[in-house]
């Protein structure tokens, strides 16, 4: 599996940047416009799926290694839990929006507003993107193993 033709490779090497940037935009502006952490994370994962389909799995494995992806996944989950626990420490109850209520009210409709909601969006976007990337990556590895296993069995027979 060395990827597709050179037309697909060229176009996807241009498009992947736009897809990735759109995912980041959806995550960062999740508290102002439609979208949010989940949708943006899926778009980030989709840009890597585009790379995987066009260039093959080895290219993506070099670009974003599996241990790094699982660490990003854990980091997203940890950040989300950390924001919740910081609400318990500073605001008095779990998941309270302490930044908006006490420290950084901000103007509504600005990018820096709504307290912990953009931070939670970032954490969830990181988590969902890394998780879906891991799912697709693991499934493709499993598919390949399955095929090689059957081929070796045929040789043995």
């Amino acid at each position, binding site marked *: 599996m060395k990827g597709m033709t050179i037309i697909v490779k060229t176009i996807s090497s241009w498009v992947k940047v736009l897809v990735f940037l759109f995912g980041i935009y959806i995550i960062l502006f999740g508290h102002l416009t439609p979208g*949010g952490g989940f949708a943006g994370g899926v778009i980030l994962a989709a840009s890597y*799926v585009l790379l995987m389909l066009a260039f093959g799995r080895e290219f993506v494995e070099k670009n974003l290694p599996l241990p790094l992806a699982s660490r990003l996944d854990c980091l997203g989950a940890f950040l989300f839990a950390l924001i919740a626990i910081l609400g318990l420490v500073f605001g008095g109850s779990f998941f309270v929006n302490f930044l*908006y209520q006490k420290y950084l*009210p901000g103007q509504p409709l600005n990018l820096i*507003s*709504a307290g912990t*909601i953009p931070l939670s969006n970032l954490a969830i976007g990181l988590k969902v993107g890394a998780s879906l990337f891991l799912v697709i990556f*693991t499934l493709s590895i499993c598919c390949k193993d399955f095929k090689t296993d059957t081929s070796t069995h045929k040789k043995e027979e």
Partner: protein
Amino acid sequence: MSLFLYILLLFIIIAAIIAVETKNLLSAVICVGAVGFGASLMFLFLCAPDIAITQIVVEVLGLIILIRACLSRDITFISGGREFFGVVVSVVIILVIFLAGMKVFETLPDFGTPIFAEAPEAASQTYIEKGLAKTGAANLVASVILDFRAYDTLGEATVLFTSIIGATVILRRKSKKLLEEPDE
């Protein structure tokens, strides 16, 4: 607008029936994709752009995986008929669910109207009135899922995390090799 939504609903139902009934696996997958895109359009016209974005993005990703899985398999045709007993049981179950659903749908508001049109003291009315003042987020959906109902999001993230851990542990390469070595 309402007529367009009903036509879209009819399209979704027809696509779902084709997806169940067709013999070709790839056609079935494409019909499932048509159902998803129809649902996404419907969310968009019902003024729910957040759900529409999530629906269309997840649909594209799932469709890519399913088509890839279909293309790499050799057998894409389903053969064999159906048993008479299974058909009777499923028709009876669908009839019971349909009759129960008729009673339930009488209590729901009309298609496309929000629930607080009939129940003014519902919680969603509070979110709309006080969401901007209490959280400062212009997108009310974000203020609901990350502030008012953040526990739900935490549970959802935990479900995703656990499923990824399970998939990676079961499907990874090293454990297979370690398990295979003592047998050989």
